């Protein structure tokens, strides 16, 4: 009993520490700094398939030189052309390049992906680059919800296979906590979409749609369990539903990769890879959210155990009568 409390405490402490570190890192370590290009000293475009790779050396307003090396598509730039002219030029005088991570003069911005808009009227890069930092919370939240629903799948299967109260308790707890994280992912995504796309939700987007369905499924799961009389058939039905519902997780995860989707693919695709800084902060976020999940999960199971204890006591009382 005491050991469990100690583990809970350590988990909660770690979660809080990691969350604070992530927030600070997202805000300060991986800032998006605008680099207002005043002069393009050297500039070269290479076409590889659909991508434009840009190399160049530019000066900002203060005259400091920055090397832009091997800039590929995707992630973090607002291209506001001073004079919309030569599209192929990519970077021209007056371009504002938002760079993820610290700007280090002279060292350059090597390997930091910057997207060059194809059309100045419809920039394909981030319209609202600061909002893109929600990425450090949105992705870990989505990942944690997938993890949580994975736990629901495993525990539900184990419950059907072997039986045993604890599997059911774990599945229920994981579903509820996972729903919280799924809500965070959906809401943060919608806020970001408003900033970036100009509207909260796009119903034609398969990624958004499938995640929404996933969200609905686990709302249904929690609703089936909520307030229901404790009876053996409910855990069994819920377990079956949890297994069916998990089918939406791979659909949600893969949808933007299988079908065309507005949703950016940043992690683990050929479309873009993260810079070392962004990757590090993202990993930090994933660890922090997983720890928060573990803490909440442990608390939720404790509540469920107490509920069962209460029912046990009540039964004892009835027996004593």
């Amino acid at each position, binding site marked *: 009993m005491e050991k469990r409390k100690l583990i809970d405490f350590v988990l909660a402490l770690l979660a809080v520490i990691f969350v604070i570190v992530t927030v600070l890192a997202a805000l300060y370590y991986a800032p998006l700094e605008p680099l207002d290009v005043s002069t393009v000293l050297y500039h070269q475009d290479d076409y590889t398939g659909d991508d434009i790779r840009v190399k160049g050396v530019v000066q900002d307003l203060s005259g400091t030189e920055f090397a832009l090396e091997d800039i590929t598509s995707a992630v973090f730039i607002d291209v506001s052309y001073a004079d919309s002219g030569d599209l192929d030029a990519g970077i021209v005088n007056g371009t504002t390049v938002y760079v993820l991570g610290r700007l280090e003069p002279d060292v350059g911005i090597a390997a930091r992906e910057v997207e060059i808009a194809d059309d100045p009227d419809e920039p394909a890069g981030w319209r609202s680059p600061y909002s893109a930092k929600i990425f450090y919370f949105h992705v870990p939240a989505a990942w944690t919800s997938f993890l949580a629903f994975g736990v629901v799948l495993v525990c539900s299967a184990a419950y*059907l296979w072997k039986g045993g109260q604890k599997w059911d308790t774990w599945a229920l707890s994981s579903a509820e906590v996972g729903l919280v994280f799924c809500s965070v992912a959906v809401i943060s995504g919608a806020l970001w979409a408003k900033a970036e796309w100009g509207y909260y939700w796009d119903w034609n987007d398969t990624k958004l*749609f*499938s995640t929404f*369905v*996933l969200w*609905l*499924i686990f*709302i*249904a799961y929690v*609703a*089936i369990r909520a*307030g*229901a*009389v404790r*009876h*053996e*058939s*409910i855990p*069994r*039905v*819920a377990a*079956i*539903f949890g297994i*069916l*519902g998990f089918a*939406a997780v791979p*659909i949600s995860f893969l949808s933007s990769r299988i079908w065309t989707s507005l949703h950016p693919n940043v992690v683990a695709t050929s479309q873009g890879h993260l810079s070392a800084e962004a990757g590090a902060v993202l990993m930090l976020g994933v660890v922090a959210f997983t720890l928060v999940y573990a803490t909440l999960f442990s608390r939720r199971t404790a509540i469920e155990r107490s509920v069962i204890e209460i029912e046990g006591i009540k039964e004892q009382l009835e027996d004593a009568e």
Partner: protein
Amino acid sequence: MTLDALRIAQKDISIELRTRERMTSTILLSLVIILSFRFALFGFDMELSENPHLVAPILWTTIFFAGIMGLESSFSYEKENKYLDGLLLLPTSRYSIYLGKMLANLLFLIVVDLVTLVFVVAFFAYEPGGAFVTLLGVILLGTFSFVAMGTLVSGMTIAAKTRQSLLQIALIPLIVFTVVIPAVAATSKIVSGSGDVMPELNILVGFGILSLLLAYLLFGHIMED
């Protein structure tokens, strides 16, 4: 197994013919929905002959609403009146019970579909013309797919013994992608006379068969106390 399922379906149908409760209330609901659409669109001076793509949402909104209402009473009729144990005591597999219920629901909903189609044709002066057979095919397949999963989930929510009915909340996320969108998309294509509906039909048939398979695997588990 099939014979048992047919007998259970026949029992449901003869009860329905006796009481006509389900059919009357569902068809009335269908009428109300269609009339609401009619007056809403009439207010905007819209005619279906000019906007044939409106047929799809009107038709399927009605069918899904009426269908959920019908599915809900399918098992709750047995449960609330405490007949369910009688079915479970029959020397047949649980899957036959599912199949029987599914067939009765399917037949019931097909009647509602046809009546709704008549309403749409009558109130909106919509003429399917040559597309009639394909339209009917899509409606039947959509209904089949909907009923196959709906009967399974209906059994589930009844077995869960929750106080309020959770059929809608549990069913809708499962059918949005798999039934609602393909059915509406295919109907839109047919009424506007453009596009190939085979991909949608494949999804509907595939999901219907998948539901039957899932029911085969799960229905025994669901119905056990």
